[in-house]
């Protein structure tokens, strides 16, 4: 887009007000909020910088208290509904924090006047507009037990692999195997997630090759006061407080003298990244990725994980022209066409469906689904579900994002069916096209937010045996990405040659004269073929059924 930005007088003139007049110095690295385990306090102290550690030592009592409160949630799930316990927690922390003002720089201290029982073990608010308190508790009662069971299994696995350790968090994991994949799919124990993600994404490899670079980037940034990234700075600054406003670690408390450590860390990670990769700079949605990582990993590791996500798993997705998003949405649309044919016909007209025009002029629903990919479902689905998706993402790579998307769309499809039925009953006629379009968007926006229970998409759809989705592996997605990329490029080149030269800013999409013949001319009849097996023919068709059919014939 060609917005005329005359001068970037941002650093001096505009940065001040945004940040309350304080200049930004990127000096000390602050700790991330530690893994949520019993050894938290020690762990926490270790990670603190020396000065902070000193002041922290004197004031850990409150922090401990708050950790214990969140721990009750995790390994005492059964007691979660215990009124007395919650009352006790409330009573114990309110007076403490108000008398102990020195604790002001602890990121995990209970906030004044806040009822900690309303926050989950990561500091997120448990219930919201989409999930009621009752729903949450009913689900958590069950799911917390599941988590405990799974953790025991993991402990057994590690012990059998000779990796058991006295420390609660393992520093090594068994080699890749079908069994380990299954374990990951069923969820990594919450307090091991940071380590596990780092391990499976081969973060250490990346870090070892670039030792000291993160600090260097921050130092350079301070020295240069880089004006070219002024634009990014401004957007980053605005997004810091719009990342996890409902998370206690990202909230500024009334007693705070300075902003929460999490916010400071988030700023540094995003700024360092914008300098590290100018092709991307800062793209909204990366704040969600970095924000979630910071809850599980320290700052430097968060930075490298962000590098890995944006290059290995989501190539080009956050680039300035967002071409990677368009490619991935094209791939997703091909998948919908293949795996959810009924839904497909609701979102794309027959005409557009015949040729590949939809790869170029993406259907409007991709506006919704694009954000699923850009933020890897952070903020799209409830947190425990997000984390399960991330477990698989780092072990199995990006095809999992397509599988999850298809599963969600499948649930949406069911909801739409119900809505359609209701409409018929209530109004005694089929809904109009306009009504249906609205309905689709509404369902796409609300259904994911209600997916409190990860099992709804994991056990019941994605990893259900004997369904075709199993064929949609990383190889298939990589092949599909290449195909969509080349198709989009061809259409763009053809548009250029035909003199419908789109302006540099809007990409080829602004070409408005492109009709079906145009597309056909450009692409002849190249159609993408999914690799099929017997089971791939239809969703939910088991091998047995298929064989039965063949026999009958």
């Amino acid at each position, binding site marked *: *887009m*060609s*917005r*005329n*930005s005359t001068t970037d007088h941002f650093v001096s003139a*505009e940065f001040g*007000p945004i940040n309350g007049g304080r200049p930004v110095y990127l000096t000390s690295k602050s700790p991330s909020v530690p893994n949520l385990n019993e050894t938290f306090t020690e762990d926490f102290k270790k990670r603190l910088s020396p000065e902070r550690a000193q002041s922290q030592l004197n004031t850990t009592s409150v922090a401990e208290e708050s950790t214990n409160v969140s721990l009750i949630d995790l390994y005492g799930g059964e007691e979660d509904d215990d009124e007395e316990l919650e009352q006790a927690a409330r009573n114990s922390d309110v007076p403490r924090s108000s008398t102990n003002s020195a604790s002001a720089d602890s990121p995990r201290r209970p906030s004044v006047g806040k009822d900690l029982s309303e926050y989950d073990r990561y500091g997120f608010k448990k219930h919201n507009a989409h999930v009621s308190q009752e729903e949450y508790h009913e689900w958590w009662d069950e799911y917390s037990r599941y988590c405990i069971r799974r953790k025991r299994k993991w402990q057994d696995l590690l012990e059998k692999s000779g990796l058991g350790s006295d420390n609660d968090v393992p520093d090594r994991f068994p080699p890749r195997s079908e069994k380990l994949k299954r374990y990951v799919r069923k969820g990594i124990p919450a307090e091991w997630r940071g380590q596990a993600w780092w391990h499976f994404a081969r973060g250490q490899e990346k870090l070892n090759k670039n030792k000291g670079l993160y600090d260097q980037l921050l130092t350079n940034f301070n020295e240069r006061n880089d004006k070219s990234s002024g634009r990014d700075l401004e*957007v980053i600054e*605005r*997004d810091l407080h*719009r*990342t*996890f*406003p*409902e998370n206690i670690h990202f909230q500024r408390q009334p007693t705070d003298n300075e902003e929460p450590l999490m916010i400071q860390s988030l700023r540094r990670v995003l700024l360092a990244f914008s300098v590290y990769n100018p092709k991307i700079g800062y*793209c*909204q*949605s990366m*704040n*969600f990725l970095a924000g979630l990582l910071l809850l599980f990993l320290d700052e430097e590791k968060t930075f490298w994980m962000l590098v890995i996500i944006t290059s290995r798993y989501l190539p080009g997705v956050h680039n*300035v*022209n*967002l071409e990677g*998003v*368009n490619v991935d949405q094209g791939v997703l649309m091909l998948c919908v066409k293949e795996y959810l044919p009924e839904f497909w016909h609701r979102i794309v*007209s027959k*005409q*557009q469906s015949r040729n590949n*025009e939809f790869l170029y*002029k*993406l*259907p*409007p629903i*991709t*506006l*919704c689904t*694009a*954000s699923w990919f*850009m*933020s890897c479902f952070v*903020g799209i689905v409830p947190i425990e579900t997000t984390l399960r998706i991330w477990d698989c993402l780092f072990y199995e790579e990006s095809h999992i994002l397509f599988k999850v998307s298809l599963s969600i769309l499948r649930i949406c499809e069911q909801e739409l069916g119900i809505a359609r039925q209701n409409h018929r009953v209530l109004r005694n006629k089929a809904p*109009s*096209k*306009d*009504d249906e*379009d*609205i309905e689709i*968007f*509404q369902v796409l*926006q609300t259904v994911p937010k209600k997916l409190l229970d990860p099992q709804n998409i994991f056990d019941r759809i994605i990893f259900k045996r004997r369904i075709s989705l199993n064929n949609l592996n990383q190889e298939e997605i990589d092949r599909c990405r290449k195909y969509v990329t080349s198709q989009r490029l061809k259409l763009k080149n053809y548009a250029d040659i035909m003199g419908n030269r789109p*302006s540099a800013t*809007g*990409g080829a*999409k*602004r070409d*408005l004269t492109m*009709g*079906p013949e145009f597309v056909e001319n450009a692409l002849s009849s190249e159609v993408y073929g999914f690799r099929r097996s017997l089971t791939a023919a239809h969703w939910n068709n088991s091998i047995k059924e298929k064989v039965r059919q063949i026999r009958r014939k």
Partner: protein
Amino acid sequence: MSSRKKNILKVIILGDSGVGKTSLMHRYVSDKFSQQYKATIGADFLTKEVTMDGDKVATMQVWDTAGQERFQSLGVAFYRGADCCVLVYDVTNAKSFENIKSWRDEFLVHANVSSPDSFPFVILGNKLDVEESKKVVSNRAAQDMAKSLGNIPLFLTSAKGSINVDTAFEEIARNALQQSQADADAFEDDFNDAINIQLDGEPSSCNC
């Protein structure tokens, strides 16, 4: 008169990141304000039933978009078929005000509206509630700009303080309705003409 009754009004809110697009939408649709909105990625939308001139009922579909420049390329598909475009700036942010014109131009390029000169825009200067000393866009400058862009209606609003938001959206609804009717009539003319039928593969433009 039109036989094609379209009862859905599509309104698109554009403007720089952080000017308050999401807040305005929520204030108007559900009369709520929160400090806790997240940055919008892609787009969000809400609907609201509106009644105009006593008897005309329509569903207003309000689209809230991402403000960062690069997201523009994603929005193309849904700009089409819009009945009114709301341009928002932040009275404490001069750049967001300067960018109003570019947002309008971008919209016109992508939306493919039938007659760009008469397409309805409404400008909102948001965050009116902040203290005077922080305001950097003068009312005068805003009026001049609105006038120069073709007498676009201008409202100074506060989503937080619920100032002028309903009034502004009433105007938006009226404009959108007019535009939608004009479009429907034009569609019919085109159709009766039977020479220049160019539906442009847009299924939502036909409701027969």
